[in-house]
């Protein structure tokens, strides 16, 4: 350090020396209350639509207009106009099938890109992940034509494949990021112990990546369950998902609002339940993409 000639420092020179009085503590408590009220206000804004839907799902058309009274007639109308149960089933089937494919495909590829790098794998990885940007609408019609040419549009298969393809880029990215976090030495140790890379993947990588798998499952479930366009397009009418069914119901002008509200409620509940149970995973999945 340079030798210091005594500089002319005047400590205390710059503050306006009039600190607030001891009511600062009171001010801080008030501040907290203001924040609390703000949070409540925002909560009302965010949650009101749910209340509206629940409230009006249990009315008849007349009650809806008057905005008073409750009944189950909305539900009756809903079930009359829409094969609710079977559509719920369809949604479930499609979700399960698509998620299964996504998981298989993304865990294997994610592991390969993260740990089994080969020449050009970086580019291939980029290719897969950038497919994220392909908007469904751009490929909608060619896709449909392709799939119907191989008769995949007369059953679940077509939709399942499309959902799987749409979900794979992000899922692969997520898995690759997660696998990168596993130390290379763990893999090498397994290889030294005599496992082939494929066995290492099955017996070591997969068990270690269960949290990421859970995250992808939750994310994709919500996305697929709530999706409209694929369900509308690639599924035959009698195998529609609940979301697609609800949407077509709403564009027909003959259905009463309470029925639609009831339909909304029914289609939203599974996703909400999944959300409530697996919140943590959802949040993790969202933010994991930012980490690296």
């Amino acid at each position, binding site marked *: 350090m340079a030798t210091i000639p005594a500089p002319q420092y005047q400590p205390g020179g710059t*503050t306006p020396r009039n600190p607030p009085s*001891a009511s600062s503590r009171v001010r801080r408590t008030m501040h907290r209350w203001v924040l609390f009220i703000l949070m409540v206000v925002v909560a009302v804004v965010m949650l009101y639509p749910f209340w509206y839907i629940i409230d009006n799902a249990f009315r008849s058309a007349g009650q809806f207009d008057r905005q008073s009274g409750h009944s189950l007639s909305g539900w009756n109308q809903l079930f009359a106009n829409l094969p609710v149960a079977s559509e719920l089933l369809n949604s479930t089937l499609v979700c399960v099938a698509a998620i299964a494919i996504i998981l298989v495909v993304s865990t294997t590829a994610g592991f390969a890109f993260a740990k089994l790098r080969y020449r050009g794998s970086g580019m291939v990885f980029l290719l897969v992940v950038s497919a994220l940007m392909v908007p469904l609408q751009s490929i909608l019609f060619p896709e449909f034509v392709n799939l119907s040419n191989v008769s995949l549009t007369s059953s679940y298969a077509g939709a399942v494949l499309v959902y799987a393809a749409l979900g794979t880029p992000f899922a692969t990215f997520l898995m690759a990021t997660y696998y990168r976090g596993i130390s290379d030495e763990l893999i090498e140790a397994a290889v030294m112990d005599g496992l082939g890379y494929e066995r290492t993947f099955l017996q070591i990588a997969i068990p270690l990546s269960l949290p990421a798998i859970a995250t992808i499952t939750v994310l994709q479930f919500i996305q697929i369950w709530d999706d409209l366009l694929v369900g509308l397009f690639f599924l035959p009418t009698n195998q529609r998902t609940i979301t697609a069914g609800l949407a077509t119901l709403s564009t027909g002008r003959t259905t009463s609002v309470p029925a639609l509200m009831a339909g909304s409620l029914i289609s939203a509940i599974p996703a909400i339940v999944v959300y409530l149970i697996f919140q943590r995973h959802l949040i993790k999945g969202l933010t994991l993409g930012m980490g690296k």
Partner: protein
Amino acid sequence: MARIELDAVTKQFPDGTKAVRSLDLAVGDGELLVLVGPSGCGKTTALRMVAGLEDVTSGTISIDGRAVNDVEPRHRDIAMVFQSYALYPHLSVYDNMAFSLKYRGGVPKAEIRQRVAEAARVLELEPYLQRKPRQLSGGQRQRVAMGRAIVRQPRAFLMDEPLSNLDAKLRVQMRAEIAQLQRTLGTTTIYVTHDQTEAMTLGSRVAVISGGVLQQIAAPQELYRRPANLFVASFIGSPPMNLVDARLERGGSETDGGGPVVVFGPHRIGVPAEVVTEHPALERYLGEPIVAGIRPEHLRDAALTVDGGDRPAQPVIELPIKLREELGSEVFVHGAIGTAAHVSDDAADDVRSLATIVAKMDPRTQIAEGKTAAIAVDAARLQFFDPATGASIRG
């Protein structure tokens, strides 16, 4: 310049832990007071309360006589240097230092430039003014953190273990620079560290804290020679003071010269008359258990002649030597004393009652492992502590 006073300050966290218990401290104008203690002892919490970053549960903190408990940090006119330096990564060194001056208001641009330039010159940061923190070494970042505090010309500095993240050599160098800087600026400073060497070299006074309670506050020499309790005795000084559970017995006239005798295991050490005079309270412990302490540097090889040989004979104890550590300039020998060493209540679990004491020897010593050696005890430097309270037995 400012006086800072802590008056019965207590901090209790929402989960019930009491980090600071009724702390009384006064820092004089322009003084550098060091708060030292093991991790978790509450020293950083106390510092943060002075800064205003933590609420005071009870008690008063005053700056220049005015209570500041409810005053926000920004109005206290205090600058703080954080352990992690807290440099803004998106700003250059210059902007980091000028940051508060710019946004606090009240300082014209020209003066900002001048103050930053001056601080940069003093801290040898001039070549780095346009760099970002991540392009700097640890030592340089530390100096930027100091620079940021200096340019504010505050009433007081608060430093939270500013050297902990530096390597040993750099730490020693920066220690000296900080001491010099503080002396030149004359700004009141509270400095927190867990390193007792740092505390001893920096502070005009040092406050030893453990478990949120102030153990002793005094000048470094005082802490060394007259520790107020077992904690201070074992915390200050490296290697730590040897502490043994012993009994104080009445001496017979034959070997011990009539005065009280410290007895532990097979060993007897007579307490010299001047010590008895200085510690009249020892009377009360005759026939009772006590904890006796002697620093390694006050034990020597009885076989080596002392220069200027006319020294009164010192008591000698015979110890089997378990270990000899060569440090070049000195030698440490560990000798078994054949009884339990004093193990404090909050000692780590892996402290075994292996019952050895450490002695610091002249490197010429011939003491070897596996042999028994005669160790002379400078009994005038004996310390005594009450086994129940841990307090030093004074007059």
